[in-house]
């Protein structure tokens, strides 16, 4: 009797917990607002960066210069995880890097410093991103440097190219 009532009681509590806990999941509206966005790449000069908003996250679109593309493999020694999933710029189209502008440490916005010149945080700066909050460094493709607070590379959001149009949110 005691066991039966305990089991029935536990099942009832668990059953009622489902709707209450599920209510905390993103609503249908939140899911719809997370749909993909488009960007015209033809207006972006080499060396320039555009910031597009997707799912309320700043997405950095970097048009890499020839020099930057040449420099990226030479940074393999300095970054924590040199493996490139897709190409030098971590995209199918190596001229562009598509990166989530959210530091993988504690979600600050890393700043874009494309210049190749000595910086306060690095004497051999080859261009990249620097996070002013806690000093994390990333190269121009968003790969994280060794010995900084950020644990992983800046994320690449799902994206695809259609001619000159970039679609963020759909792979």
């Amino acid at each position, binding site marked *: 009797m005691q066991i039966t009532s305990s089991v029935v009681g536990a099942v009832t509590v668990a059953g009622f917990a489902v709707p209450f806990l599920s209510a905390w999941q*993103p609503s249908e509206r939140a899911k719809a607002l*997370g749909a993909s966005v488009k960007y015209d790449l033809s207006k972006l000069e080499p060396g320039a960066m555009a910031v597009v908003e997707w799912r309320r996250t700043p997405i950095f679109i970097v048009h890499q210069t020839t020099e930057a593309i040449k420099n990226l493999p030479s940074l393999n020694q300095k970054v924590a995880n040199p493996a490139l999933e897709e190409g030098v710029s971590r995209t199918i189209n190596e001229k562009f890097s598509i990166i989530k502008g959210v530091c993988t440490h*504690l979600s600050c916005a890393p700043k874009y410093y494309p210049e190749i010149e000595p910086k306060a945080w690095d004497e051999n700066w080859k261009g990249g991103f620097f996070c002013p909050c806690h000093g994390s460094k990333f190269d121009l493709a968003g790969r994280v440097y060794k*010995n900084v607070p950020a644990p992983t590379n800046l994320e690449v959001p799902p994206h695809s190219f259609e001619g000159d149009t970039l679609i963020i949110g759909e792979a």
Partner: protein
Amino acid sequence: MASKNSLMTWIDRRLPVTENLERHLTKHPVPSKVNFFYLFGALLMVVFMIQVITGIWLMMFYTNTEEGAFASVEYIMRDVEYGWLMRYMHSTGASAFFFLMYFHMFRGLLYGSYQKPKELVWLFGCFLLFLLMAEGFLGYVLPWGQMSYWAANVILSLFGAIPFIGESLQVWIQGDYVLSGATLSRFFALHVVVVPLLMIALVVFHIFALHEVGAGNPEGVDIEKYRDKTGMPLDGKPFHPYKTFGALPAIGIFFIVFFAIVYYAPTGGGYFIEKPNFEEANFLKTPEHIAPVWYYAPFYSILRAVTFGIPFLGITSKFLGFIIFAASIAILFIVPWLDRSKVQSIRYKGIFSKIAMIMFATSFITLGYLGTKPVNEIRTFIAQICTVFYFLPFLLMPIYTKYEKTLEVPDRL
């Protein structure tokens, strides 16, 4: 008087009012000699009441939506009669709450207010600190200013650092892929209903447990040993009127300081309400420097001090930081079982206990200072040392409290 007595008898037959008043107020013995450290409990009750009352009034004007929150706070500040007073009392109250809580707990550490049989009193208190930290965090998000938004982002991303389940857990807490209005409105519900209810329940448990085992004193003397003919301990005085009226001057002084801050320095120079929070939340623009409010700074410092992970276990520096940050609060819960000393009070403990308390207090304050500053290499290094010094007094406690030489505790206060 006869009618009053018969009324009381009628009530007491049905609800034991007189019995409980005597038990908890007019006949409850408290040590006759204590110092100012023993006033913080009463002051905490006062601040709790300030928070509840001002909170209810703020709730009457606040809008818990992403579009309306910031504007409603401006409305409270500018258009609502005395709205500014309600809000500044509430925000200053939060700082006061933590200030008093830290002293109240430090008193506990100094005078062994956690030792047998007061373990539960201490545990309920630790839960209250945890709830207060949660309550403060949830409340800081509500004005939906820049610092509300970005500080919350930092804290919520800590949940995202938990291996495997982290990301979905973070989305579940946020109710969106990013921190948004969905998060704001659930934080509002937690801040005004769930956490305060739990806190009230725990305060009741805290006090009932305290009245069961009896309040301590700075000497660590057991006042229950010697009693007079009526059963009142010789070194004891009834709680009411001695303690109640004794606390009044302290409450007066507290109010003078409290309202001086409310009227003349409500933002506390950016430490009570941070400057970026006077700007509405903007999810595309991170403030240059994200600093916590002063009362979280020591713990934030510990979080940031962890710049390394355990790669072969798959633990990132971020997750390890989260673990150590959680441990810095969790370790307080087990203090009653770490202290093996024969005596309660620091006055009769040995030299190692004294060094440990100084070490703990110094590192806590240093960590607090560092937590409000931007990081650089030197500060990170100091924070790492202080983190070690924060934990050492607790981790080594079972050893030094057992072997150090203690003094003889007197029989009477």
